[in-house]
């Protein structure tokens, strides 16, 4: 037995020794995409929620810096290379120029074209003015290998709160920065942007896969922490006509996924820090998608635990998210064409769960 072990190549050895169970958790560079029509398949990297936080002068919170640096370094090592990189919002913590600059500097080490999504922590200091100087329009669309991508600014809120409520911009930013702040205000896409979206989608054939890239969830999960989009139903209505629609969202700093009608929802991880699942707040009700198998409970003693980034494979218009978790076994959530919903490749069945997913 020991001798034959030595003659195996590493791929087989890893399988034999139980180090990896399924294709979904193979090391990044060893995955073989098993989709039909491979000419339309592509992969892109998704880094999100870096929350670069300025302390003073030239010093920033080291913990969040390291998370983003690592994501950038690992993305650069990918082989085969991803087509492009998406940054999912909240590059800065309090929207300051120093933070956006420092974050942009770390991101500039990426060897790929990068597109950015607006997050509330980027927006509420100057309403995205400096962000736009660095990264371009706050909402836009583009096509890639037969998929229509729409990037929304989904963290807007009521005009009164944005323009009239607060005496200073700094105050406004601080109020929105507190996740559990009762003075906050729910996120939305807003009427103007919804009109733009409707027009944009009108030009897209119904059998073209549509990917909506957003910071807020385009669902109503838990209002107390703004895991919420006020006009979620209206945005969803615009996506329902499409055969294959996927929403990718950040903001929640945890693994979530859902299927509503023909729309698949997938959250992405943060590089900075994890957030608790809403059900861990005993005083309020929340509506977590039942489908979601939670990520392993975060262990605060490991700084990078429950943080990471993701590699998204798109095949036949569906997404497969390979979560690169720095301190944990990687997870894969992929659309299952048989059941018509996203599923975790290892832990979806109840009897496959492990203690770190139950012991919350």
């Amino acid at each position, binding site marked *: 037995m020991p001798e034959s072990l030595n*003659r195996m190549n590493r*791929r087989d050895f890893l399988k034999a020794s139980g180090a990896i169970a399924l294709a979904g958790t193979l090391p990044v560079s060893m995955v073989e995409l098993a989709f039909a029509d491979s000419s339309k398949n592509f992969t892109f990297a998704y880094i999100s929620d870096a929350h670069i936080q300025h302390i003073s002068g030239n010093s920033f919170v080291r913990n969040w810096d390291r998370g983003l640096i690592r994501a950038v370094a690992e993305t650069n090592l990918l082989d085969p290379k991803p087509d492009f990189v998406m940054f999912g919002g909240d590059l800065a913590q309090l929207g300051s120029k120093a933070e956006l600059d420092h974050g942009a500097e770390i991101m500039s080490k990426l060897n790929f074209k990068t597109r950015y999504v607006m997050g509330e922590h980027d927006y509420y200091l100057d309403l995205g003015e400096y962000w736009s100087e660095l990264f371009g329009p706050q909402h836009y669309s583009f096509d890639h290998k037969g998929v229509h991508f729409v990037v929304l600014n989904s963290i807007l809120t009521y005009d009164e709160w944005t323009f009239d409520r607060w005496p200073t911009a700094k105050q406004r930013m601080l109020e929105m920065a507190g996740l559990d702040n009762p003075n906050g205000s729910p996120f939305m896409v807003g009427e103007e942007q919804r009109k733009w979206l409707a027009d944009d989608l009108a030009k897209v054939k119904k059998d073209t896969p549509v990917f909506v890239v957003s910071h807020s969830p385009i669902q109503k999960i838990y209002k107390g922490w703004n895991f919420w989009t006020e006009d979620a139903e209206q945005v969803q209505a615009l996506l329902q006509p499409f055969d294959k629609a996927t929403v990718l969202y950040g903001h929640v700093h945890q693994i979530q996924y859902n299927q509503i009608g023909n729309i698949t929802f997938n959250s992405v991880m943060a590089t900075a820090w994890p957030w608790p699942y809403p059900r861990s707040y005993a005083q309020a009700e929340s509506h977590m998608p039942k489908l979601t198998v939670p990520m392993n409970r975060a262990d605060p003693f490991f700084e*990078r635990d429950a943080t990471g980034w993701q590699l998204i494979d798109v095949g036949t218009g569906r997404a497969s998210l390979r979560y690169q978790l720095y301190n944990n076994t*990687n997870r894969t959530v992929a659309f299952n064409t048989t059941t018509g919903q996203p599923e975790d490749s290892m832990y979806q069945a109840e009897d496959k769960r492990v203690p770190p997913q139950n012991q919350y």
Partner: protein
Amino acid sequence: MRTCIFTGILFLGLLLGSSFLTGAMAQDPVPPLGLPPVPIPPDNLQTPEKIALGDKLFHDTRFSTTGEVSCATCHVREKGFTDSPLKVSEGINKLTGTRNAPTVLNSVYMTSMFWDGRSPDLEDQSLQPFVNPVEMGLKDHEPILAVVRSDPDYTKAFDAVFGKSGDAVTMKEVTQAIASFERDQVFGDTPFDRWYFEGDETALTDAQKRGFDVFINQGRCVSCHRVEQTQAIFTDNRFHNIGVGINNIQGDIPNLVPKFVKADYTRTEVDVAVLTNPSTSELGRFVVTSTFNDLGSFKTPTLRNISLTAPYMHDGSQATLRDVVVHYNNGGVTVAGDPVNDFLSGGIRPLELDDAQIDDLVAFMESLTSPEVAQMAAATGEE
């Protein structure tokens, strides 16, 4: 009255007798002070004869191409089962590898072997050095089998221990005996153990007690070098990138990583590559798992008996315990101010310890030597 005493003695005799019986068949149920129960695999139970056979195999230099190298060449009993002060070990013809010899002491508590954990247990680990070109240099294990199947002392021993002879004696039995010997090297009862688990306030000096406070609090060493409520093995059996070695190849990583993955080595090839190619060696556990998590990661060694096993780290690059602490204090770089590598473990950051605290921490680590091990080391002087 007399019958009472008689029954009493009989009862006592039975009691002692039965415990004696179970003692011979099972393992010693009481581990040394400060250690958890010794994990023995059910298919390789300990017996004194098996341990003695393993000892003999461990020290046998015939299992090398030059007839000069045995396990004990790099794992010297009197040096805490290492080859201190060598940075990296020397095999046949003084050929050097890339790694510092880890101790065998208390290795039974490890859940994987080698600095990168590429071997799942002690039995499997012992197979590898025999066929590594810079260790024993054999082409395969046949020469070993030839010896153990013909040497009269070995044939008698293998028959007694395993009930096997001739071709039935395979590397399975050989490695089981070696592992059995290694599992017997369990030592606790250090001054630290007597202070922490038995409350003997005289066991440690004040400096050592202050050092323990640094170990648990500001130094956070306990995060990976585990100490628990009733025992302490000083390792978490996990792999961490603490910025040793990998800092030397930071610029090369974008080339090394894809090259290594494309090469798709067999396991033996990995074993060879790791010891013969310094750059590959620095990739750490990545060569075993090919996951980014493990870039530059190495296994947390135990700190027990650490005073005897200088120099330190997987490449022997830290000469003294003080150097080690300074490396951690700098936040994962040997020279303060050097850039840290991108894949540094999340727990590593500047500690802001002052000189006194560093000295105390080193003093504390010196309290982790078991008395029997200290005696073994002292014994080399009395030849």
